[in-house]
Each structure stands twice: as structure tokens, then as C-alpha cells.
């Protein structure tokens, strides 16, 4: 009985860790497929589309200080509606009709890993 209880406790305790890892893995795959084209495979804003013709600098997600200034909601909104929703360039497409809510959340989580920051709250 005690053993069963301890196992249950372990599962409850480690659940969020495993869930977090799965989300990060999905976020990384999604980022590599959709976002790296412009933001680069490491998220440094240097994807293959950023040629001399590209009219703006895609955000470098590893710049912690800059990423701290924006909230998860800000990130979510730009992913869904594109750059213009935050007065940024239309070169950032609206992905709201492409990605599911869960995929968008996974991406927000992955960007927070890249910046190693939590961002503005509220």
C-alpha cells in the first residue's frame, strides 16, 4: 500500500516535468519548421530569408533584455495575428489560421527557453 502511495506521489510530482519536456520538444520542432525560416534555427534572427533585401530584422529571441520587455500574451498575439498587431512589420505572418492553440502555447514556451526569461507579466 505504501509502495503504491509512493509511486502515485512520484507520478504526481514528476508529471509537470515530463509535460514541460514534451512541450519543449514540440515547441522546438514547430520553431524549426515554421519560424526558423526567418528567425534562424537558433532563434537569433538570422534565417535564410534574411537576405540584403529583407526589409526588417527578425527578432533575436536570445536577447534576454529585449524579450523581458514583452509578455507571453504579446508573443501569442503576434504569432496569431502577425507583426502589424504590435506595430511591427507584416513580414511576420499571421499564423493563427495555421497553428493550433496548443502549438502556439508550445512555441511561446520554447521562445521563453531561448531567451531564458519569463517576460513581462500581465
Amino acid at each position, binding site marked *: 500500500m505504501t509502495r503504491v502511495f509512493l509511486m502515485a506521489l512520484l507520478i504526481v510530482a514528476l508529471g509537470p516535468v515530463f509535460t514541460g519536456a514534451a512541450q519543449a520538444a514540440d515547441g522546438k*520542432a*514547430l520553431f*524549426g*519548421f*515554421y519560424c*526558423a*525560416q*526567418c528567425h534562424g*534555427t537558433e532563434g537569433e534572427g538570422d*534565417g*535564410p*530569408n*534574411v*537576405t540584403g*533585401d*529583407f526589409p526588417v530584422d527578425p527578432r533575436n529571441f536570445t536577447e534576454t533584455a529585449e524579450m523581458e520587455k514583452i509578455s507571453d500574451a504579446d508573443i501569442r498575439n503576434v504569432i496569431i495575428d*502577425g507583426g502589424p498587431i504590435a506595430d511591427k512589420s*507584416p*513580414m*511576420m*505572418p*499571421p*499564423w493563427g*489560421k*495555421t497553428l493550433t492553440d496548443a502549438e502556439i502555447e508550445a512555441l511561446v514556451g520554447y521562445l521563453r527557453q531561448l531567451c531564458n526569461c519569463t517576460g513581462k507579466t500581465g
Partner: protein
Amino acid sequence: MKTGASVFPALVLLVMTSSLARADAAAGQAAFESSGCQSCHYTQGPATEKTIADQLAKKGPELWYAGSKFQRPWLETWLADPQPIRPMKFNSVMEPNPGGHAVLSADQAGPVADYLMSLRSDIVVDGAVKVKKKNLKGKLIFIKKMPCSGCHQFPTKKKFSGGLSGPSLIGAGERLNPDWVLAYLREPKVFKPVKMMPVFVGVLSDKDMKNVAAHVATFK
């Protein structure tokens, strides 16, 4: 009687022409299969990809709607002298396209083009896009309002511009069927359920999609 006399030869010619086309398509299918094209291109629709992994497992673009997507003269020429369409390798974000697509002989290119042109999607509406010399609304959407130019190269007065991750649209006016471009914008997941390009359904109006397709059709 006079009318019947002129209609009969025309009918015979029509039957003979369509029989020849079918024969060429059959010969083309045989050449397509014996050349190993199927190892990279699937020709049976509908699309079945469900995940990013499914898409990344593909070695080349699907061809099950090739006859709706391409223009035949371009296709035959390209099969005999294939030049890279994508600046980057298929399904790769960072690796440049090394080229080296298999080349078909002049004898094979025609029949294979016939075969590929026989592969059609019934959601592509013939004549839906009216192509003119210019479509300024489409141009504005392509360059300014939407991020199309961020991923697709396109011709400019100087030479060309645009990003590298998507297929180049230089020469798209000769390569792509504008009606397919519209169908792809309208119902992208029918053709490519999982793709690096955003879905613009609900973002662009149907009219704007037509304008974009008409603008792409002007690309030389």
C-alpha cells in the same frame, strides 16, 4: 449534309488526338515509373501528411495534382533540363539546393509531361483567375500587406528580390497555372496539409486571393 461532311473528319481527328494523348500519357507513366521518379514524388492523392514528421519524410514535392499546378510547355522543357526552383533543398531550412535533379531524355520528357498533366485536382476551377499584364492590388498584397516576398523570390525591375525558404516565383507566369495558385490559397490543406507557408484563409478575402494569383501570373 455539307455540315455532316465537315463535322465527321473533325470528330475523327478529335478521337485520334485524344487517343494519342492517352497513349503518350500511358507511355509517360511507364517512363516515370521506370526512371524511379516515384522514390521522391508521390502521384496518388489525396494528401495524407498529418504531422511535421510526415512532411519532413517526403523527399520531393507531391505530384498528384501536377496537371492542375503546372503549365505543360514549361513542364516538358523543365523535365529535359531541370534547374532548381527552390533556393533551399526540399524540406531544409538551411541547406542550399544542390541541384542535380534527374534529367529525362527529349524522348521521355514529352510523354512524362503528358502523364503528369493527366494528374488533376477537381477543386481547381479553370478560368477562375483573369490574368492581365498588371495587377496592382495583387502586387501591393504580395510586396507590402502580406509577407509573400519574405519567403519567395520574385522578379523586379533590377533583377529579382525576396526570401529563400519558399519555392522561387521567378518565371511563375510560365510555370504555374494561376487557377491552381488560387485553389492553393483557398484550400491549402487539400494540397499540402503540413507546410512552412502560413494559411491565408480568413486572412485574405477571395477577391484578394484572385488578385495575388493574377499578380504571380505576371512573373517572368
